[in-house]
């Protein structure tokens, strides 16, 4: 098994994404710096509304108004994704970075056979193949996620939720991308399927040696497949470190709460604070601070202590 390399595949710098509406401006992503290295799985955890999906869409340049990147850079290898012309961007899509959407249930065109949706993806990137070669390619990626080629003539609604999710993973593998951005790829599945599908995803990623930015809200699930883990809160990263390190030695109060909220047979707690006024102090200005090698924490303040 090859571990994470040192080259940086994706580098997000000071990214700010706002939803600018008439009534208010929501700062969904409020200054995020993040690096994804070669062959690495970086997890990004946080509650709904913490800005993690917006971050993914912003990086992929799939935001729809009123969402807008206000500031920041997204470097993929040596290109600035945010500055790229639409046609150059289209050439990079899927071949270089693939996306596994949150709503995989509705991500596939409901009135198109799966084969056409696979073929469309190839054709969009100038891959002209004989039908037999194409079938072979599809079969290969489907086998990679534990599906058979006999689903190709079917329509999406003829598959189960887990199968559709696997189809999306298979599609992501189709052109052998360097980076996969997976946005809560299992959130719509039951607990058992979640684990199985996530393991499938991890194995498939490993097989093509791609890096992955894996977004989720289930820390326990993320912990199983990630090398590093970032915790997002109110549009910012509050803590970032190697997965094991973060679990063993969480510093930020929000991370601690997130970890302690992992369902436990004996003790079930929720993340929602018992002292909301304390939350106001969770985000202090200033850069992430390195508390030990590779472990970064955002400054915070609680009633009793000020720390970082």
């Amino acid at each position: 098994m090859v571990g994470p390399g040192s080259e940086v595949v994706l580098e997000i710098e000071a990214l700010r994404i706002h939803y600018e509406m008439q009534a208010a401006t929501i700062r969904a992503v409020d200054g995020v710096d993040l690096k994804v290295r070669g062959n690495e799985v970086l997890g990004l955890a946080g509650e709904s509304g913490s800005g993690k999906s917006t971050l993914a869409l912003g990086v992929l340049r799939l935001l729809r108004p009123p969402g807008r990147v206000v500031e920041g850079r997204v470097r993929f290898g040596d290109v600035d994704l945010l500055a790229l012309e639409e046609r150059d961007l289209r050439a990079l899509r899927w071949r270089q970075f693939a996306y596994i959407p949150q709503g995989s249930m509705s991500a596939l065109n409901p009135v198109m056979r799966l084969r056409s949706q696979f073929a469309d993806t190839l054709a969009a990137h100038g891959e002209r193949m004989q039908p037999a070669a194409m079938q072979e390619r599809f079969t290969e990626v489907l086998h990679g996620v534990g599906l058979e080629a006999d689903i190709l003539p079917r329509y999406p609604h003829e598959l189960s939720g887990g199968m559709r999710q696997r189809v999306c993973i298979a599609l992501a593998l189709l052109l052998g991308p360097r980076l996969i951005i997976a946005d809560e790829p299992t959130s719509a599945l039951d607990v058992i399927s979640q684990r199985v599908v996530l393991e499938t995803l991890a194995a498939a990623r490993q097989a093509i040696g791609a890096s992955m930015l894996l977004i989720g809200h289930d820390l326990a699930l993320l912990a199983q497949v990630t090398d590093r883990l970032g915790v997002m809160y109110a549009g910012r990263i509050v803590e970032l470190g190697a997965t094991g390190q973060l679990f063993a030695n969480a510093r930020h109060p929000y991370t601690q709460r997130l970890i302690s909220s992992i369902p436990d047979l004996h003790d079930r707690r929720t993340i929602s604070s018992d002292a909301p006024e304390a939350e106001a102090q969770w985000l202090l200005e200033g850069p992430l601070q390195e508390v030990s090698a590779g472990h970064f924490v955002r400054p915070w303040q609680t009633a009793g202590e000020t720390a970082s």
Partner: protein
Amino acid sequence: MNPRYIGRRLATFLLTIFVASTLNFAITRLTPQDPIAALLGRMASRGRTVEDGGEIVARYRERLGLDAPLAQQYVSYLRDLLQGDLGYSLAFFPIKAEAVILRALPWTLGLLSLATLLAFAIGNLLGALAVWPRVPAGFRWLVYLSMPFSAIPYYLLALILVYVFALNWSLFPLGGSFTVGSDRGLNLETLADLLHHAALPVLSVVLAVVGFWALSMRGIMATVLGDDYLIYARARGLRSRRIFSHYAMRNAMLPQVTALAIDFGRLISGQVLVEIIFNYPGVGWVLYNALRAADFFVIQGVTLFMVFTVAVATLLLDLVYPLLDPRIRYQS
């Protein structure tokens, strides 16, 4: 497709036709007006005295089967109908009513299908492009421009077009379906002449309904644009044109096809008025003249034709729809 579904749909279709035919029979018999007496009355009013009027009425009634009991008339009416026999045209006696209608049929079907297809295609494309990103903002105004026409009734629009383009500028003929006295054959010249005559009638129907299609398409398309499969298609790097045609338009068209089936009746009735204004020798024009002449059997036939056309259109769309949307499975 499920053969049982097709069977049930066909049965519904036949039932519709049967009920419409029966109503058609009942309504005409319930009218106090006697077609023969009306005919004689008109002749008399034009100064032609009809001697022995009573006997002629009786003979005609016998000949047309109008003296038999209602039940017997109904049975023979249905029997004749099955054989495509609609009865005699009173105005063009001894020409049969079906012959009068059949002669007019190609004109109406040609005009109707041309206008419907054009309006449907242009309207949907206009509406879809109006919300598609990367379409010049000026283009969006075309939708708004098409809207006022939808508020104007067909016949008024037709009159305006005649006044402007035929009367004032003489760009198009005032009416008719071809140049009288021209040699008609299978050649481009004939086709050009036919299209030249059809242009204004088609335009008045197209203008009247194109805004309706554009507006509803715009609404559906705006919803589709935010759908996950569209964002996912963009993420996969599909070409914009491909996404527009096979992901956005393709899916947004589904409710429009349903709307087309519902709207078909309105299209046909609008067509009648347009034909009258343009003196276009279609079924609408035949109906108009039949109404003026109290040509009962022709009126009956035209009404049946309209019901039949709407029923066939609905049937066809119903049979085609599952092919367009595989999620619709007609179970028995």
